[in-house]
């Protein structure tokens, strides 16, 4: 199946599949570099304000639910594993395995978004922690706590947006995989989507301690 696809798999501007494969990976890595800088603006702002308003940021952090955060971290790590296994299946040309893992990844991604939306954001909003909408906080450092929640919603929001995009990409891959579009010579799309998915996972790996843990829970 793979070899019959080789001709169709090679775009006209490339000399061979190796070149095409490397170009695709390099392109995605460069895109991820831009993503690092995109999140970087937020991380820079977070670093500065956290150091300026340490007590408020700690107080804000204590209002978040660590258990849910940790569960969500685990969910994302699982989805990374299934994604990595999916890429492996595509590399080996195993269509059914690929489909299974793509569905797993998709489900885990949706689970993450769902948990975030219903158990966290909704809860935070009802508690009155949404800056600009209904923020109310009675304790000391109210101003810095509000700033913390600005960053909380911004960072998790931008991250969730990336998750939504990732889920969209996975759905497309799923449809293509269903049609048997991929093979050992033609799995660049799966691999680059995998890179993106893992990157979004990494962002969360940093967001989890920065938002939930860094104030200390003792």
């Amino acid at each position, binding site marked *: 199946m793979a070899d019959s696809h080789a001709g169709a798999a090679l775009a006209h501007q490339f000399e061979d599949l190796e070149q095409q494969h490397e170009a695709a990976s390099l392109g995605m890595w460069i895109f991820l570099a831009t993503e690092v800088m995109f999140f970087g603006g937020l991380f820079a702002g977070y670093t500065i304000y956290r150091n300026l*308003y*340490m*007590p*408020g940021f700690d107080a804000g952090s204590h209002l978040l639910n660590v258990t849910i955060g940790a569960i969500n971290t685990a969910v994302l790590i699982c989805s990374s594993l299934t994604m990595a296994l999916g890429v492996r299946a595509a590399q080996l040309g195993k269509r059914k395995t690929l489909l299974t893992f793509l569905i797993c990844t998709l489900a885990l991604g949706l689970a993450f978004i769902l948990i975030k939306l219903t158990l966290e954001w909704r809860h935070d909003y009802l508690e009155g922690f949404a800056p600009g909408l209904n923020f109310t906080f009675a304790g*000391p*450092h*109210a*101003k*810095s706590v509000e700033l913390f929640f600005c960053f909380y919603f911004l960072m998790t929001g931008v991250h969730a947006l990336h998750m939504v995009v990732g889920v969209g990409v996975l759905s497309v891959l799923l449809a293509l995989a269903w049609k048997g579009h991929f093979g050992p010579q033609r799995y660049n799309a799966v691999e680059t989507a995998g890179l993106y998915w893992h990157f979004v996972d990494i962002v969360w790996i940093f967001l989890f301690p920065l938002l939930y843990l860094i104030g200390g829970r003792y």
Partner: protein
Amino acid sequence: MWQGFPIRPDQASTIARGVDYLYYFLTAIDLFFTAVIFLTIFYFALRYRRRSEKEQPPQIEGNIPLELLWTAIPLGLVVIVFLWGTSLFIQNSRPPAAAAEIFVVGKQWMWKLQHPEGVAEINELHVPVNRPIKLTMTSEDVIHDFSVPAFRVKKDVVPGMYTTLWFEATKTGSFHLFCDQYCGTNHSLMRGEVIVMEPPEYEQWLSGGIRGESMAQAGAKLYDQLACITCHGTGKGPSLSGVYGKPVKLSDGSTVVVDDAYLRESVLYPSAKIVAGYPPLMPTFKGQVTEDQLLQLIAYIKSLSSEEGKARK
């Protein structure tokens, strides 16, 4: 002959001359290199113009010593300029201890200036000649910029923080005051004059002004009105007498020097930095005091650290 066509503004402060020298030095570098490049290009352009389509010029790959030379020369020059400019800047950034303080509040689109003696002005700043003046500035709305070209001084006036600037006028007369940071519709109308006077005239002007109370007195009145005394005089809150300029220990173990910025923060956002040993009782006064009144309160607390203030108490 340059009367009608000046190339620099008046040199009306102690800072101006030094800046101008550096500017001339830079201009000289500029002119020299521009001339070298232009003349060389013109010479080559004429000398080596194409005389026939067939000619084959000799090919030169490059020349390492030459490359190093024209790396080293600019490098040396910029190091000199950097050191010169930076040392001058440091000098110009440090207000003399004896400087008289004037307070500036910028708002769309006017300048409000307050003398410690209590005289307030709008878009005009009267100062005595040959006396260092330090401006403490803030903004009520957007970022403005206090710029007096004749003094070669400029500093952004930023909401939410105090910036400072100092100068010592050396010439009497009237000089432009511009807002240099774009601040909305009437940015170009946010202008004023700095009027430099001989000290006796200045004293006369001060006393002739609408003689209200001094800033510290106004602050004291406000202090009573806002009932600060109910805590800060009874031991419920820290005493404010003699604290200005001194370090104070905070509840989280760190120390902070009591300065304008700290006092401002403590009035507006009392819970941000709490003095060790006191409960966080103080309510915020945000929205109750204007930037002008804040400056008055600060002037009052400052006066509590000087002899005069103590006597009054």
